């Protein structure tokens, strides 16, 4: 069998660069050590301090924020036994976030996991030959009278308070217990599960933050983790202040504040990817809140600030990034720029705008694909690469990926 041009000439099993137009969907991505050190520093600083456990990642559209959240920070937190939950453009209201959260966990899965934690503390009236499963528990509940069912829910809520210590509020505990017990009749979450005041709502009026706090503790218990990290990929509208109404503006601020408050009280981490415009708008709307989020104190100690700005990689970091991706598709000749030319610096030096992970990865994909298509001998000549760069990233196009600016 004859080898493909890519394998024969470029020594690659495939084109390793993801072509994705909207966010790299890779499990793991390359990020420079400089960035890794900063994240470690933020983590050290914030996990020991008493302030909010969170920070913004600020970068233009197409600079690689999504990839950073999904391909690096997810693993970063999970290595520290912190469960990550990724939110893609949630709405500005607190409910929207809660709804997305519970939707991503799934009612049955979350209730089952919580019940598993509760069951060792539950008193049992009967003896069972085999250990009981969650579905046995739910089926059993169906057969019980209303009175018996109520007693079972009360037992569960006592465990929620005394043993799991999710809350000290009996009403909230009862509602969490009901959420578990009612999974048999309603195996999904709906907005009534979070919205206070509406008829049939699970959450008591004015108790949404406390309820949410108990849910966060519940996630920590149920999944046996040290904490929870919310990786929020932009509150999309914030970058377009003119499209927002006053209500949306203040709903957004209220949500951000609730999250920051919660992150101070619980081991909840909040990382929000946003554009520079969105960051600036948030700062303008409520400077105090922004200062809490980026940990800017009255002494303006820059070394303690936690605003992560996605700035261009330096030349060496850019080359490392290219090599890192190339190595995903080869067994031999690792750690080399080949089939790209060694003098690729000449292009990178003059174009800081393409020295961000996402544009660089995209360019490499297209350069390699085009070179393969045109059967260009390796190493691919620098003027060929330059042509591709100018084609895909003419200087005026910078910052307007996906037609957004």
């Amino acid at each position, binding site marked *: 069998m004859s080898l493909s041009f890519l394998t024969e000439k470029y020594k690659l099993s495939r084109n390793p660069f993801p072509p994705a137009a909207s966010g790299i969907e890779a499990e793991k991505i390359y990020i420079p050590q400089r960035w890794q050190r900063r994240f470690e520093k933020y983590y050290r600083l914030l996990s020991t301090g008493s302030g909010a456990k969170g920070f913004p990642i600020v970068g233009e559209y197409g600079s690689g924020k999504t990839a950073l959240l999904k391909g690096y920070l997810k693993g970063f937190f999970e290595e520290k036994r912190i469960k990550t939950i990724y939110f893609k453009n949630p*709405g500005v*209201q*607190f*409910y*929207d976030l809660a709804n997305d959260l519970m939707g991503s966990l799934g009612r049955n899965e979350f209730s089952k996991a919580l019940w598993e934690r509760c069951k060792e503390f539950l008193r049992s009236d009967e003896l069972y030959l085999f250990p009981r499963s969650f579905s046995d528990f739910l089926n059993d509940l169906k057969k019980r009278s209303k009175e018996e069912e109520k007693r079972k829910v009360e037992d569960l809520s006592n465990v929620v308070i005394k043993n799991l210590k999710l809350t000290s509020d009996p009403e909230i505990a009862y509602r969490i217990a009901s959420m578990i017990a009612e999974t048999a009749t309603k195996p999904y979450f709906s*907005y009534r599960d979070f*919205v*206070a*005041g*509406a008829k049939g709502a699970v959450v008591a009026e*004015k108790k949404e933050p406390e309820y949410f706090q108990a849910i966060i503790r519940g996630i920590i218990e149920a999944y046996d983790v040290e904490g929870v990290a919310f990786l929020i990929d932009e509150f999309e509208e914030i970058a377009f*202040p*003119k*499209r*927002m*109404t*006053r*209500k*949306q*503006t*203040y*709903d957004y*601020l*209220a949500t951000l*504040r*609730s999250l920051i408050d919660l992150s101070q009280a619980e081991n909840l981490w909040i990382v929000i990817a946003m554009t520079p415009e969105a960051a600036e*708008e948030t700062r*303008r*709307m*409520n400077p*105090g809140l922004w200062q809490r989020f980026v940990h800017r104190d009255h002494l303006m100690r820059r070394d303690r600030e936690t605003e992560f700005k996605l700035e261009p990689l330096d030349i060496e970091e850019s080359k490392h990034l290219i090599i890192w991706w190339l190595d995903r598709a080869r067994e031999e000749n690792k750690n080399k720029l080949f089939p790209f030319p060694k003098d690729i610096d000449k292009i990178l030096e003059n174009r800081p705008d393409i020295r961000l992970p996402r544009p660089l990865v995209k360019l490499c994909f297209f350069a390699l694909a085009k070179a393969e298509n045109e059967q260009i001998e390796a190493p691919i000549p620098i003027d060929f690469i330059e042509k591709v760069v100018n084609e895909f990233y003419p200087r005026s196009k910078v910052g307007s990926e996906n037609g957004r600016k």
Partner: protein
Amino acid sequence: MAENDSSFVILIDTNAMSALSIYVESCSAVNTELGAGIEDLKEKFKKKIEREEVKFEEYLELSGRCGAKAGFDLFWYLKNKNTELSNNVKIYFSFFSQVELFGVFLDRVFDHKLTRQGVPYRIRKKKPFRVQIGFNYQEEVVDFWEEIKDKLMEQGIKFEVPEYESHSEFLKDAMQVLKIVSKYLALETMDLYLYATGISLRVDEIYTHDDDFRKIINNIREDPNWKNIFNSIQKDLIEKNRSFYMEFESKGKITLPKGVPHEPH
């Protein structure tokens, strides 16, 4: 964000929308583009009557305080706002106002039919025949409203229904505001609902032809004698709703809606 940068939000009251619908209908009746002046419309109606294309009783009210003239004013108010603010305007019309408006449309249908049958106004206004008159609700009310909305949309005027937004979150917020407002203001039921809706949506203006309602809205905003009511409403809003709390924290006060138009018709 600076408050001036946000979308400008207007809530339209039923009476104002009814006037706007009369204006749109008048323009359609004489095949004239929306935007035409009232004198122009009158002239065209006159010619139609002379040519016996329309009967006198079908001549729509053109100059009454809630007639086509008021609708013409609202049409240009919204048009100019759109131009002035580069279309950064959001116009709300409540679902319940729409229900009320459909009632107005039905009245017009009945009135029209009874007039043709020679029933005098004295009897008509008692509405004794409503259950005995055949009517096509879909065609005469629902489709009629859709046509009006389509014509206005062609002019860049688009209405949004707050009750349809964001699941039922809007209603939850509006009910919370309604409970607060009703503690301090004895408004008519529909006015209370609209005012609470306006506050909850943070509308900049409530456009209404109800002079009393508009006066109350503006007194709460501006009149020092009403300051205690404003303060009480503001205090409760801040206490019960985090979003209002953030507004107060950012701006130092809650901005309540303004009643427009300025001059009574």
